């Protein structure tokens, strides 16, 4: 076991990425993720890596597309408005079946919004974001430790399935420091015969591409991709259950909202209310089965979010509306307090009396 160090969440992502063998980072300054870029700027030149501050978010994501085409681990990071700009490139990366890591340290929106924490890019992250039928593997860290661990996992999953991965964090987890045990050095273990590394006059040329002008061909690539998505949904769902076994009220929350919710669940238990928490670690694929399982015995769900209610739709779908689902949320950079969550738990608990 390596020694624990104190790091900001944003820095932990950067160091974990380097340890996962990522030697190419492209970004553009934006609060509240700038520490990540600054860390890369400092470290990359010392390990023969590449840090490049791109002229725009659009250029940065396309540089990512270039490096990934060459078969190497690569990432970019930004915050909400910048991630909107990247959507074109993300769609192309998805359409070209390239692995990549995109980090979104979310801030409040829409528009220029604010710079304080938010989770209001949930739809954008989990339902597509750019044009076309596609998904990202979306991981939601709730601690600095998970910022590191899920970064390494994101690279692995992305390489394995040839699906871009997104780390969906928020300003709080990005800015906070906690002790973290950094993951061991690793790297890509899958072959990438599709990479454009030069034919060496030994093989037919490889083409990285998302253009298919023949509808039958484009349909076939979409269906093939969705078969991989089905595998991901079957194999890669991750979540944490906390006191859900006998719960009457089940809170569903991720990231910083889950941290607050855990306090509220403990407070509710102290008051004799059987509350529990399901914390999705992957929000795509969403832990549908865990929700459906809980729906068999809970009175209802409380979706705690830093948005006007986005994940709540997935909770309702997962329990097939067999149980009421209420929303406890603050937006614009505000974070619900444990008391506010507790209040929602009580309401749900008493609602069906």
């Amino acid at each position, binding site marked *: 076991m390596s020694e624990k160090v104190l790091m900001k969440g944003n820095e932990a992502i950067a160091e974990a990425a380097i340890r996962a063998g990522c030697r190419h980072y492209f970004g553009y300054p934006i609060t509240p993720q700038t520490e990540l870029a600054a860390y890369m700027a400092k470290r990359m030149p010392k390990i023969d890596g590449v840090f490049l501050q791109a002229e725009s978010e659009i250029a940065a994501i396309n540089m990512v597309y270039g490096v990934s085409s060459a078969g190497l681990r690569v990432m970019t990071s930004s915050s909400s408005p910048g991630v909107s700009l990247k959507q074109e490139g993300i769609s192309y990366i998805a359409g070209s079946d390239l692995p990549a890591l995109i980090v979104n340290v979310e801030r409040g929106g829409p528009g220029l919004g604010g*710079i304080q924490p938010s989770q209001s890019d949930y739809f954008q992250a989990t339902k597509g974001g750019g044009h076309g039928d596609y998904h990202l593997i979306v991981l939601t860290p709730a601690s600095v430790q998970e910022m590191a661990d899920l970064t390494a996992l994101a690279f692995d999953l992305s390489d394995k399935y040839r699906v871009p991965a997104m780390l969906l964090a928020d300003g*709080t987890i990005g800015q906070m*420091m906690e*002790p973290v045990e950094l993951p061991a050095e690793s790297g890509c273990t899958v072959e990438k015969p599709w990479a454009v590394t030069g034919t060496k006059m030994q093989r037919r040329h490889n083409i990285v591409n998302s253009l298919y002008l023949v509808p039958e061909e484009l349909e076939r690539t979409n269906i093939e991709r969705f078969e991989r998505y089905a595998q991901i949904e079957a194999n890669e769902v991750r979540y944490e259950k906390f006191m859900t076994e006998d719960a009457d009220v089940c809170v569903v929350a991720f990231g910083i909202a889950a*941290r607050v919710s855990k306090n509220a669940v403990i407070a509710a238990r102290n008051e004799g209310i059987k509350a529990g928490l399901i914390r999705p670690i992957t929000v795509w694929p969403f832990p549908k089965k865990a929700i459906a399982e809980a729906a068999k015995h809970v009175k209802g769900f409380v979706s705690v979010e830093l948005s006007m209610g986005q994940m709540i739709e997935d909770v309702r779908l997962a329990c097939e509306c067999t149980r009421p689902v209420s929303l406890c949320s603050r937006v614009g950079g505000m974070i619900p*307090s444990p008391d506010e969550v507790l209040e929602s738990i009580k309401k749900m608990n008493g609602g069906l009396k």
Partner: protein
Amino acid sequence: MTTEILIAGFGGQGVLFAGKFLAYKGLLENRHLSWLPSYGPEMRGGTANCSVILSDDNVGSPIVSKPDVLIAMNLPSLDKFEKDVVPGGTIYVESTLISRKVARDDVKVFYVPATELAKSIGAPTLANMVMIGKFIRESGAVSYDELDAALKKVVSARHADLLEINLKAITTGYQY
């Protein structure tokens, strides 16, 4: 045991630094902890605050909305956060800059003329660490031993010459 600490003041008073010191001290003592700064334009000359949680167990929410301990380095911070401190909690007031008294009677209060004390040791910018010294003395939340090990983590190598004066500021507060 869990101690939720809120340190607040003007940007430039070393509020985040003081919090970082406590966080590293906690780390070296194998405590569970979190450190969360306010961030953004408000840091540049405006008010700044940071939340530090030290605990024997996993830290839940890193956001300190009901502090056990408030270290108020200026009047706006005291005005803003005084009401949030839990009953039975503690408020440390920087009394060189804050002339008013704490209105509540259900909290313990220490008035520390930290800026004045810092000036007296020739380090006028280290009022933050003087307050930390007093906090360590009164709370026992972290130990008074091996301060320099934690300081070395927060004072960058190129400012190593500042280690000693920081230590002196903490000691000054501790002894006040």
